[in-house]
């Protein structure tokens, strides 16, 4: 559901999965749905979401519509007993997230949320080390993500509530909470500064930093700047994640500066197709990259893991609806703290 960039990828990946025998795609623009259906060999396409969710052949629904349009399709799928994968964030408000959770739990239907960064191998491997006790007790950590200013304006144009914090830093809130699983966040403090994005007409910070304190005293530092110059060589998230434990430390450099290409021909820019860039950090594309006719990277690994889970019951590590709600709450608290200049205590009042 939703034939945009990510929906297109999900459809393509699904169409190639050995357990998938039927594919239906929808988009509020019926022509986009039709084009995607043609590309992927889907059996059915429509300009109406309900039409595909209710197909009897469909037992799994992927909701890839834009951030503000997740709730209704999810509820429709739950009502029909169909398992759901929805893109992050689960919703843009806590009441909407709660409606989804309540409906899913009542109906006994699984809703997973596409925090696909979990499926970038370095983060999977880091999670494994923590699970094996190799860093001892989690005391603190840090994660930050940079991206181009054109990425920020693209997501804000799509939905003004999808700020870099709620739409992108959310991945790193999810990662850090996954690394420090089972412990609630009790306090959030954040500050940001405005600059070029404001000059472009979006009342959003260029850079925000946050300090998140967990109930057990662990303290995590987060940062986001979706304001880098457009020719900066990253084609997606430039990130870092660090975990500090009593028994060890993990330092993950996810800036992709280890894979450099300079091309005189230039490479198409992710969101600005008329502006090829000459220098790129390969493998910096956020969902992954095309290579040799196949798509490789976090969205591919995550989609495959979810479909394998549905098809053969293999456990998967995708974020649950409750985890996604907790992450949403932290990102909303970050925005609130930055706006008021005051720390925010969790849980938030609804």
């Amino acid at each position, binding site marked *: 559901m939703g034939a945009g960039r990510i929906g297109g990828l999900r459809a393509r990946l699904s169409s190639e999965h050995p357990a998938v025998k039927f594919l239906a795609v929808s988009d509020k623009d019926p022509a986009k749905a039709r084009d995607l259906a043609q590309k992927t060999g889907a059996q059915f396409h429509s300009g109406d979401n309900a039409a595909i969710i209710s197909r009897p052949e469909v037992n799994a629904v992927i909701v890839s519509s834009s951030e503000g349009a997740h709730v209704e399709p999810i509820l429709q799928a739950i009502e029909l007993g169909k398992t759901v994968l929805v893109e992050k964030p689960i919703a843009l408000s806590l009441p909407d997230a709660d409606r989804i959770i309540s409906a899913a739990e009542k109906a006994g239907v699984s809703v997973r949320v596409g925090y696909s960064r979990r499926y970038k191998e370095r983060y999977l491997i880091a999670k494994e080390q923590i699970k094996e006790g190799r860093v001892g007790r989690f*005391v603190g950590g840090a994660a930050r993500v940079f991206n181009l200013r054109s990425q920020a304006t693209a997501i804000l144009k799509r939905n003004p509530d999808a700020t870099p914090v709620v739409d992108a830093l959310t991945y790193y809130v999810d990662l850090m909470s996954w690394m420090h699983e089972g412990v609630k966040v009790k306090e959030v403090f954040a*500050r940001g*500064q405005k600059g070029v994005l404001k000059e472009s007409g979006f009342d959003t910070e260029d*850079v925000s930093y946050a*300090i998140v304190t967990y109930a057990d005293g662990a303290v995590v530092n987060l940062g986001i700047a979706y304001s880098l110059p457009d020719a900066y060589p990253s084609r997606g998230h430039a990130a870092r994640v660090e975990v*500090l434990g009593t028994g060890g430390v993990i330092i993950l*450099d996810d800036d992709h500066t280890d894979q450099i290409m300079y091309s005189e021909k230039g490479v198409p820019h992710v969101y600005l197709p008329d502006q090829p860039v000459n220098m790129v950090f390969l493998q910096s594309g956020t969902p992954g990259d095309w290579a040799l006719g196949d798509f490789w990277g976090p969205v591919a690994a995550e989609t495959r893991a979810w479909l394998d889970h549905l098809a053969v019951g293999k456990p998967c590590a995708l974020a649950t609806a409750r985890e996604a709600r907790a992450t949403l709450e932290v990102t909303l608290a970050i925005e609130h703290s930055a706006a008021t200049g005051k*720390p925010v205590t969790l849980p938030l009042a609804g």
Partner: protein
Amino acid sequence: MRRRQLGVAIVGAGRIGAMRAQLAAAHPAVSFIAISDADAARAKALAEKVGAQFHSGDNSAIISRPEVNAVVVSTSEHEHTAPVLEGLSLGKAVLVEKPLALELADADRVLAATKQSKGGLHVGYSRRFKRRYLLAKEQITQGRLGTIVGMGARLYNSRAQVFAMLDRNPGATPVVDSLTYYVDLLGWYLAGNRVAEVWARGAGGVIREAGYQCDDVTWAILRMADGAVVNLGVSFALPSQYPSLGYSGRIEILGTKGVLIVDDDHREQLLYTEQGIPHIYLPGVSVNMAFLGSSAPGDWAAGDFWGPLANETRAWLDHVATGRPCALTTPAEARSNLEITLAIERAVETGQPVSLPLAG
């Protein structure tokens, strides 16, 4: 073209004082060296090592020597003030290790003395003289980042270092003692801006478990007067055998026209040796795997000392000998660094935001 001969007094013959002495002894303008230390035997041993002309167990005895026109104060952190005031009162050029003092009142006494003195004072925030940080400063000076909207810096070190530091001085903290270097860089890079408010949190772990009053990690967010945000972090709790032989640092600066990312973790120079590599500060600590170049003051190589401490010492001596400008931290900048680090500590302790300037 001024060329002055220098007589250098090195007050404090510990690890840093010893390096300053060796660097001074090799400098072309230095023709006299005097060394003092509370432990007279230690002063004597260093004097013999560097060929100093005079040594003493009494700091005043060397500061007041007529041959001495330059004084390096390398005593431990809580004993900077007296020798600095003495050197300034005698009109000598003074270099004092960071931090300038441990209390604002002492820092203010020193600032007042600099206004009355014919001598000058610089403070040894030698991280400025690590080349990648110098280059970053140049880019900012050239306007290549536009208006700075944000900056992040973090510093890691091993718990072996923090235990040694706390044994030497139980009141020391990674924030006042070491994160201060990155507070200094922040002041240098965002010159003309001012820290308005500090928020910070810390988390306890192995260091508290070992019986010291010190957090494993501290994170701080600073708001500048113009709204720019600065994120600082320090953890001196990394495992003892972590391959860094000193600071693992990072600085990232975000501006309206550009971004600057400085990786000071030294992961690109790896040595694994079964023989083990000694730590420059911690006798008895050696690691098998090392990030070369990570030693904070610098490294010995081919008979010479290379790195931030060497660059800084040479720059200061050149300045005193020839009048050439140098980029060392000024007393006012050092006072500001101290104030910010104290504010960070207070913000952690109280759990509240702390506005600057601090009320004494």
